[in-house]
């Protein structure tokens, strides 16, 4: 314990000016140290380690020889037909679920930004899918779309007029569609809260002025409202594209990438290669490649969206 002066009047020993300056310079780095150390050890280092492994024919057993193979893992990845399917499925997932989530999120936010009876309740309910577990949601939808008497088949039977037993998750297109549906259903609430925050915070006088000038509702949205929540739109778009490129859990739990790898996405295939087929170097090359592409895309996206305020 440091002795504390009683009266508070005794002059406290002051460190020299140089020491104080040194401390001021060191302070931000000290503040960053805990987070930075965790992040360096458990995120940055593994990223480089994986990149390193991707150049070897690498075995997990200690003592096994791991010959350097240069780019051969990458060439194997690029010539793998499953990678092509998985890349296409990931792209489709992105192109379909991202606009759907944004559009639905924006519509829901627009409905709730003004006073409405029960507003807080609707807002909480619409956000609930976001805070439920991917694992649970995947199983609920697997059950709704099960081949025997799932709710989806009941609805299909009702529409068709006779009993239908579609095995939704065992066919390529219906399987993919259910994967998309889960992604959209679980994601809308997230873009909804961010759009709602943006709409709530935007100044209303411009909209009012436009309305007095006789602008129609669509014109107001295109010319006034959308431009003024542009930062939120850019933020949601960038993070949703990143999120879509990371699609994994519902595919892994609902279709396991089947039938015959036709619903594989990039990360389910990488995970299967590493932990089912024990092709560690292949998985490392694939994962490194995905990371580089997604990072580059995100940076490009941010640049383009920042530079082009009209788009």
């Amino acid at each position, binding site marked *: 314990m440091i002795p504390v002066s009683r009266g508070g009047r005794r002059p406290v020993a002051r460190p020299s000016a140089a020491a104080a300056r040194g401390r001021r310079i060191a302070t*931000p780095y000290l503040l960053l140290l805990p987070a930075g150390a965790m992040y360096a050890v458990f995120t940055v280092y593994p990223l480089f380690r994986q990149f390193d492994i991707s150049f070897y024919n690498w075995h997990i057993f200690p003592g096994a020889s791991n010959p350097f193979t240069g780019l051969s893992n990458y060439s194997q990845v690029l010539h793998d037909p499953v990678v092509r399917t998985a890349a296409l499925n990931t792209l489709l997932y992105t192109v379909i679920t991202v606009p759907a989530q944004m559009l639905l999120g924006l519509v829901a936010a627009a409905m709730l*930004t003004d006073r409405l009876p029960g507003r807080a309740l609707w807002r909480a309910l619409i956000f609930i899918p976001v*805070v439920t577990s991917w694992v649970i949601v995947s199983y*609920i939808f697997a059950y709704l779309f099960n081949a025997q008497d799932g709710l989806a088949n009941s609805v299909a039977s009702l529409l068709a007029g006779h009993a239908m037993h579609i095995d939704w998750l065992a066919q390529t297109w219906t399987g993919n569609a259910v994967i998309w549906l889960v992604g959209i259903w679980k994601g809308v609430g997230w873009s909804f809260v961010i759009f709602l925050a943006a709409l709530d915070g935007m100044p209303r006088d411009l909209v009012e002025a436009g309305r007095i000038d006789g602008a129609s509702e669509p014109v107001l949205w295109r010319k006034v409202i959308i431009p003024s929540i542009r930062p939120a739109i850019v933020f949601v778009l960038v993070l949703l594209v990143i999120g879509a490129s990371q699609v994994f859990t519902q595919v892994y739990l609902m279709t396991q990438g089947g039938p015959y790898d036709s619903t594989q996405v990039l990360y389910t295939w990488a995970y299967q290669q590493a932990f089912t087929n024990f092709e560690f170097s292949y998985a490392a090359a694939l*994962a490194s490649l*995905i990371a580089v592409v997604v990072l580059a895309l995100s940076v490009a996206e941010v640049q383009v969206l920042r530079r082009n305020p009209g788009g």
Partner: protein
Amino acid sequence: MARRPRPAATPGLFGIKRRRPLRLTIALAFAAVSVFPLLFMVLQSFEPPSDILSGPSLTVSHPTLSNYPAAWTANSFGQYFVNSIYVSVATVAITVAFASLAAFAFARFRFRFREVIFYIFLGSLAVPSVELIMPQYLLMSRLHLIDSLQGLVLIYVSANLPFSIFLLRGFFEAIPRELEEAFRLDGAGTLRVLSRLIMPLSAPALATVAVFTFNAAWDEFVIALTLINTPSHRTLPIGLALFIGAHDTAWGALFAGSVIATVPSILVYLLAQRWFQAGLSLGGLR
């Protein structure tokens, strides 16, 4: 609620009271679609095991509570629940503490490579859990942290730091500097300013970070699946996946277990909800 007061004279986006029935209908439709699968889950959790695959069922003919004790006692589900609480609470506590320190550095200090370091953190927003799982597995086995809940916490904290730092930095920057200067004149040091001034004023942002982090840890599946071998160290998502059998699935128990597993995440969200919206709107998104 965190509804921001708006001057009474300012009309809403659609003008006062315009199209209220239409807006209410659409809002209701969104809310209904959002909760329907979860209501369905709750409903099915009361269905007796024999009835569960006997036709389309939006109604439960012979409701029973028996799935709940069955789920709780299956494969030491109670233990998994406790494990998940431990992992999630520890992850939230450490993430909030470390992210606040780092965000304070980014928000209030000028130092060399500040933006570079910030973007190195942000870059990993593009990196999901699955991306690093293999090298993390190797790292953890070298650190003898395979199969341990502490090992999971370390990885979860690291994964949740970037978004948390990003959100908190934006919020901290919006707090007027004059307040801080007044505090410092009273002799408060950096940590005191952070813990007694900045953090209390940032309750909305901290609550938002806590909700996101809690759910990320509570829900995390693939890392726990890969790193945990010992049954008694499993977390809830792994426990739920165990109900799915190759040939027969205990749907009733699965849904009862899912209801139990959903309660804490919804509870955390509802507790934090009053700050949540403000946390998002005043954070980095302005």
